[in-house]
């Protein structure tokens, strides 16, 4: 397969970028933040996005989706990285849809996927329990009862946790924290008794939550996939999500470079355009190079995810590289903008604050560099 976008994918890219630039620019996120909006995204916009097909990009046609694959979903994520558009796209359309697709029974799929694809239901995954992503260390307990399970413990960094209708929670049904086996997945509905959802305001002004399970009871059919095999079931889904997060990071980095280059072309100091200074030219040209490498790594990983097979190596490569590049791009953008880059009035600050969240989410560059080495057998 050629490592370029197909005509159809290029069309999706153009229409997504056009749509988001018009309907969901950074100013919209700024307004949500300034108004301390309780929902944290525009419901009307999510309806429109869903009508565009965004909510069903990873859902097959039989379940109401458009089935554009990881390349399609990554293209839209990259476009969202450029405009910082707030929506439950990542939590519901990307992660939850992939997890249900990978682990769900036919009934669960035909129940949940159409509702996700239409945008009417928001589903999210609760996996992290501490400050660092590490699925093997899951300790939240699920104890078997006569009619089902009782869940007790804490989940952190839950994407769109406070607006989710359903939370997929990864809980330990056997073994000890640190073992990759023994984890099972459960569907928990909003409002369940003992479920405490605390919205956590984070740097990116988007929706995150800490979710406490105080003896939340679920029935046996709330289990998603086989008991004790939750992690191996969802690992490919997590990798798809990591690749798509890498695509959003790529969009963030690209936008930072584009805005910075524009600034260098306009801003004058010492009586000349600062873009004539070689010190700045070389910083920008180096950043360009890093972004191009990241673009290749992300596109390759997206294509491999759609091809099938083991994608752990590609996913960790893409997420590690994109995390580092976005860190560089956001830091360089502020440095090259100078003082104005430090002001809240200017948009660059929103990009650096979103970038760090995405860098951490589903494993930072250290996590994925280590995993890349492990996947390469060293």
């Amino acid at each position: 397969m050629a490592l370029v976008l197909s005509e159809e994918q290029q069309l999706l890219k153009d229409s997504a970028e056009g749509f988001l630039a018009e309907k969901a620019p950074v100013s919209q996120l700024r307004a949500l933040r300034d108004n301390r909006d309780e929902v944290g995204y525009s419901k009307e916009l999510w309806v429109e996005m869903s009508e565009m097909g965004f909510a069903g990009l990873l859902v097959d046609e039989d379940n109401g989706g458009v089935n554009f694959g990881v390349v399609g979903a990554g293209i839209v994520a990259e476009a969202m990285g450029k405009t910082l558009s707030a929506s439950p796209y990542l939590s519901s359309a990307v992660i939850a849809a992939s997890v249900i697709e990978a682990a769900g029974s036919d009934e669960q799929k035909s129940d949940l996927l159409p509702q996700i694809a239409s945008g009417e239901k928001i589903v999210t995954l609760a996996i992290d329990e501490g400050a660092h992503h590490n699925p093997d260390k899951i300790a939240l307990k699920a104890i078997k009862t006569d009619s089902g399970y009782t869940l007790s413990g804490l989940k952190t960094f839950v994407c769109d946790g406070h607006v989710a209708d359903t939370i997929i929670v990864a809980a330990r049904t056997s073994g000890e924290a640190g073992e990759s086996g023994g984890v099972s997945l459960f569907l928990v509905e909003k409002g369940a008794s003992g479920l405490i959802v605390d919205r956590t305001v984070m740097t990116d002004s988007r929706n995150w939550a800490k979710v406490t399970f105080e003896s939340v009871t679920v029935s046996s059919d709330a289990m998603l996939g086989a008991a004790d095999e939750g992690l191996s079931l969802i690992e490919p889904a997590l990798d798809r999500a990591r690749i798509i997060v890498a695509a959003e990071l790529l969009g963030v980095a690209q936008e930072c470079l584009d805005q910075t280059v524009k600034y260098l072309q306009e801003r004058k100091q010492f009586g000349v355009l600062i873009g004539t200074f070689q010190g700045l030219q070389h910083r920008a040209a180096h950043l360009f190079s890093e972004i191009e490498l990241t673009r290749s790594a992300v596109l390759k990983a997206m294509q491999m995810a759609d091809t099938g097979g083991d994608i752990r190596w590609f996913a960790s490569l893409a997420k590690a590289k994109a995390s580092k590049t976005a860190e560089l791009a956001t830091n360089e953008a502020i440095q090259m903008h100078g003082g104005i880059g430090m002001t809240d009035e200017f948009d660059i600050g929103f990009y650096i604050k979103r970038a760090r969240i995405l860098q951490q989410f589903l494993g930072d560059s250290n996590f994925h560099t280590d995993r890349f080495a492990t996947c390469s057998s060293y």
Partner: protein
Amino acid sequence: MADLDGFRNEVRSWLEENCPMSMRASATGGLASGEDDVCWGGRNFEFKSEDQKLWLDRMASKGWTVPTWPTEYGGAGLSNAEAKVLASELRRVKAKSPLVSFGIWMLGPALLKFGTHEQKLEHLPKIARGEIRWCQGYSEPNAGSDLASLATKAEDKGDHYVLNGQKVWTSYADKADWIFCLVRTDNTGSKHHGISFVLFDMDQEGVSTKPIKLISGNSPFCETFFDNAIALKSNLVGEENKGWTIAKYLLTHERTGISDMGVPTPLNMLAKDKLGLSDDGQISETMLRHQIAEHEIDAAAFMFTLERAKDEAKAGGDIGAFSSMLKYYGTELNKQRHEMILKVNGSDALEWEGQYSNEGDIARNWLRTKANSIEGGTSEVQLNIISKRILDLPA
């Protein structure tokens, strides 16, 4: 696709029969860049073995030393897709390159684009068969990064030019038969005007070379002197005074080539050989392991970028200044790779003489890479090109 499969089968069975076993690299690979057993061709080349000569002759007779060149010029007229199949089959049997040549890599593409039919007929088949070894006369003592300031003078004498001046950093000039050379045919106007691209035989009284000893202890480069040397006008490529266009085209080609030196042995393999694995299956030096992984992530992303650039070119995109990014990143990455090889091998890597280190292979190769980001346009020149031609930053 069916045609390609047929072609693949044909290539596979031909290679099975015709690629001598000694021309297939050992599976273990190794550190040496292996310039020792490379076939450079040329009038004075001494083949290292019968097989080496046989392999070159067989490949040349198929036109597969230059598979995409037209058959009348010594190639096989393969499509890009067929050439890709050939390359993958050659890789499959780990075939050594039958011929490494600046003629194939640099001059050939320029001649195909800018040369006359007669010039192509005269020079290309000899390149394809490895009969003539070429070198490149570009840099001068006062024209390095600022190449267009070159001053080697060419005087018009009717059917030929008389050349006087000096080139420097001429790769293997002491071993080359012919030179493709930038000379000044006009001193008026801008420095980019008045440069001409000429070809001439090095085997003449007016040409002399002097190897330059480098920090690696080797002498791959020369100073080259022209003292009333002669170049026939029939070997002027393109128009007189318009050679800069060809020079730029060739540099672009060279940049892509320098950045695309094939896939080297992964660092982690070298580290595993040297350090072994601990019980948990990891390279036991954890900091080194992390550094290796970081490097290999960049190296893989770079390989994918080469792949993407090729695919975009095939789809009709213009690579142009993008080659400067490839040159910049590829050479910096290679320098970093050799620093990592030093770290992996510790004090063993610093041996300069003796059999144990194969006469200081690791150290000498490491030092050689320091020139990667200087030759063919420095990293800083590439960054300038990226800023001006891709990012459109003001001059």
